[in-house]
């Protein structure tokens, strides 16, 4: 089979992985080969689904011995199969990189022979790139759950980021849809990566030239909507993973229909808005000081699709408001609907010499209609009556049409 045909099959097979980020690792040009990263991440193109193309995202092979129902590459699926050699992947990466198409490589694979064998193959590609080509670009490798510790260690020395995909949010989901995957095994691999990263960081405090280990951290993916699991369960899993393994990011991938899908899966994709709400909730947990359990309740275990979760929280905690923009602490300001974390920093800077009015907020591109019921400024006092009014939600919620559009964009930026 020709490389171009393989590329079509193995890129198509990789399209269900939402992650394509190239951020988080700084790597200076080494003077011997191409490549550097400035830590910001660059999207070199955008596909018609609105997603960023930053890395060459492919599978080494889509042959797989596992039979995970939600996955198009499962052994029982009748998709076309292909397999790259490590050399072919390394050459493609270098040639694309030299033309400025990509920031680097995101390599995943079906499980062939055994987790260790599969991991060794991925490592070989990274080794070719780093050692034979002195490649200084970004490399993201899948950490194959269950691969042995020495292999994880080698992978982490070559790659900028490692990720072991959880895919399904609960143990029960995994038993049902991914009989070959086990939570303990996946978390075991995440734990190994976390320990090695922690060690590498401590080592770095002692000697400046200590080898780096996956400097852009680890991430994982949760498929949303393939099982009836609630957002509450998903966020609980997310909190646990962030807390226990120091994950840099979790990707939420709305389940999407794919060719020859299994009859046990839903027919329609999970709404994009649900995925969007989960990203918003995720950002609230990581940058806004919210705890996962604050965002849903036992009565409403799913996030509200019509409004962002910060607004839901605000409407359910009206006693918290109004917040005085000129006095409130950073932690309190971060909880005001319609004020993002960048604007919180700007407000803190500006108010040191200039008390803010509503007009000033407008200059900061704050949506006054959303914000004004919740804040006090030099010229504005949120009317107490509005806070008690049943009409408040309809006054502040952004129309669904605008939100749908935002869904694509904010999955990348995460600004609320």
């Amino acid at each position: 089979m020709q490389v171009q045909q393989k590329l079509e099959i193995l890129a198509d097979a990789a399209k269900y992985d939402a992650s394509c980020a190239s951020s988080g690792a700084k790597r200076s040009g080494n003077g011997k080969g191409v490549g550097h990263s400035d830590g910001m991440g660059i999207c070199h193109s955008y596909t018609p689904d609105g997603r960023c193309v930053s890395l060459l995202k492919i599978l080494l092979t889509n042959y797989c011995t596992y039979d995970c129902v939600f996955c198009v590459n499962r052994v029982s699926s009748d998709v076309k199969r292909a397999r790259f050699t490590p050399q072919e992947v390394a050459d493609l990466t270098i040639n694309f990189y030299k033309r400025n198409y990509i920031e680097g490589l995101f390599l995943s694979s079906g499980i062939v022979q055994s987790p260790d064998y599969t991991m060794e193959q991925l490592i070989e590609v990274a080794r070719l790139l780093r050692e034979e080509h002195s490649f200084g670009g970004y490399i993201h490798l899948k950490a194959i759950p269950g691969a042995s510790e020495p292999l994880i260690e080698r992978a982490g020395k070559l790659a900028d980021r490692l990720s072991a995909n959880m895919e399904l949010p609960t143990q029960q989901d995994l038993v049902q849809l991914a009989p070959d995957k086990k939570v303990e095994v996946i978390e075991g691999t995440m734990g190994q990566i976390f320990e090695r990263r922690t060690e590498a960081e401590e080592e770095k405090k002692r000697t400046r030239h200590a080898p780096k280990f996956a400097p852009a951290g680890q991430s994982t993916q949760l498929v949303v909507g393939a099982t009836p699991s609630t957002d509450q369960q998903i966020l609980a899993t997310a909190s646990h993973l962030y807390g226990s393994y120091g994950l840099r990011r979790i990707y939420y991938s709305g389940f999407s229909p794919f060719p020859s899908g299994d009859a046990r899966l839903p027919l329609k994709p999970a709404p994009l808005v649900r995925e969007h709400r989960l990203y918003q909730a995720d950002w609230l947990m990581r940058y806004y000081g919210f705890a996962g359990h604050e965002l849903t309740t036992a009565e409403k275990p799913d996030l509200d699709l019509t409004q962002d979760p910060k607004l839901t929280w605000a409407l359910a905690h009206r006693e918290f408001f109004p917040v005085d923009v000129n006095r409130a602490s950073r932690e309190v300001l971060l909880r005001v609907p319609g004020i993002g974390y960048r604007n919180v920093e700007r407000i803190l800077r500006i108010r040191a010499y200039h008390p803010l009015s509503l007009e000033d907020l407008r200059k900061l591109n704050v949506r006054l209609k959303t914000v004004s019921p919740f804040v006090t400024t030099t010229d504005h006092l949120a009317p107490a009556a509005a806070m008690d009014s049943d009409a408040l939600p309809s006054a502040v919620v952004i129309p669904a049409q605008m939100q749908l559009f935002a869904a694509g964009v904010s999955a990348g930026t995460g600004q609320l």
Partner: protein
Amino acid sequence: MSLGLAFRVRIAPEFAAWREEARRLVREGIAPDEIELVDEEHDTALSLGFALSPAPNPARAIAQPAVPRPFLDLAEIVACHSDPGRWQLLYRVLWRLQSDRSLIRHELDDDVARMRRMDAQVRRDLHKMHAFLRFRMVTEHTGAEAGEQSREHYIAWYRPDHRILPLAVPFFAERFAVMRWTILTDHAAASWDPETRRVAWGPGVPRSQAPQEDELESMWRSYYGSIFNPARLNTRAMRSEMPVRYWTNLPELNILPQLLTTAESRVGTMIEQQNSLPTNTYVPETHTLPVLRAALPRCEGCDLYKPATQAVFGAGLAHAPIMLVGEQPGDAEDRAGTPFVGPAGKVLDQIIDELGSNRPAMYVTNAVKHFKFVERGKRRIHESPNLREIAACRPWLLAELDAVQPKVVVCLGASAAKSLLGAKFALMKDRGKVMESPYAQRVIATIHPSAVLRAEGDSKRVLYEFIKQDLALAEQVAIREAS
């Protein structure tokens, strides 16, 4: 403007030129409302012989103008902006800074806010240039003698919104230090020599002078066309991040119309292939044999129900200690509606007899409940179910397991073993062992009795004995577990 004359200074489009003029004007005490700093390239007015600057005003002159570092950093970026009003804006802010040193911190001040906005626009443009510039490789021949040396030269043509080539070069110089590359724009060109590690600057050139293609682009287009999910079209988000003006520069974008027209049919196929209801929706929640048996005929969890005569449910003792799981009903079973009544059933009965047990004390069923076959004339030839069909039928098998609660499950043949022990289960390697499955605690896999029928010579006997041994093992396990 007291004279009513428009005093103006023409600034060449470079930061250094502005700095020179601005320094002179501050030293001469000329306020920004007395003079207009215009961009040389945008100034179409003719100078009619009168003074270009008003007379110096010594009272306001500042010999040593203050130029705070944060202002300078911002001004160097703003100077690259294409807005012809930038020189005037910069001068006004510089002038105001002389009496208010902290001005640049005041983000809400209109002049400062405008500078910051322009700064953000230039940086965004720079970021997009890093992202959307595309090199095309050409092979150059060097040396006097023909065909002596050839080298790769990577050439890009790009049109930024602002004059950012000098700002962009360091990025490419670091990233592609070992490559020979040239970036061409309307205004200027920069060439990198990997041997000396230096940039050479040249004049701007039109797009037509740049290479028009690169062999690898068709590969890149293949990737671009394959990596997106047609079920999630969102071209608005695409356009907002990658405005249409960039598209001409991107080789992958010329297949966009094709991608959009085929997306719909690709999704159509995806949904069509998935539009059967999950089997789970047909399996009742009450797991008792009579309830399950009554519900089975309605199942349309996969397509096998269409050609088959009927679904064949299990038979035997309701709480049997041993559950036998075959592959699927055969021709005879499909007509009779009962499992293992055909030739393979006879083999099974014989083995069970020889072991001194009896089949009615067991529970016998199949991994797949409908007969799968191809028609050859009047005959219906058995065809093995594929993994998808086995998986689709598994909820029924699991419900039966739950109803019967056997001590041990015997999988007859690879299909049943794959259903309960996973798709990579190797029958000949792992038959005759007591194994644990996610669905049942004790599972033994053995040969399907029909294999005995198909086998010839010695192997007929061998396979027969295998089944007998494995069933004997199952009996032992069942007795052990019962006590």
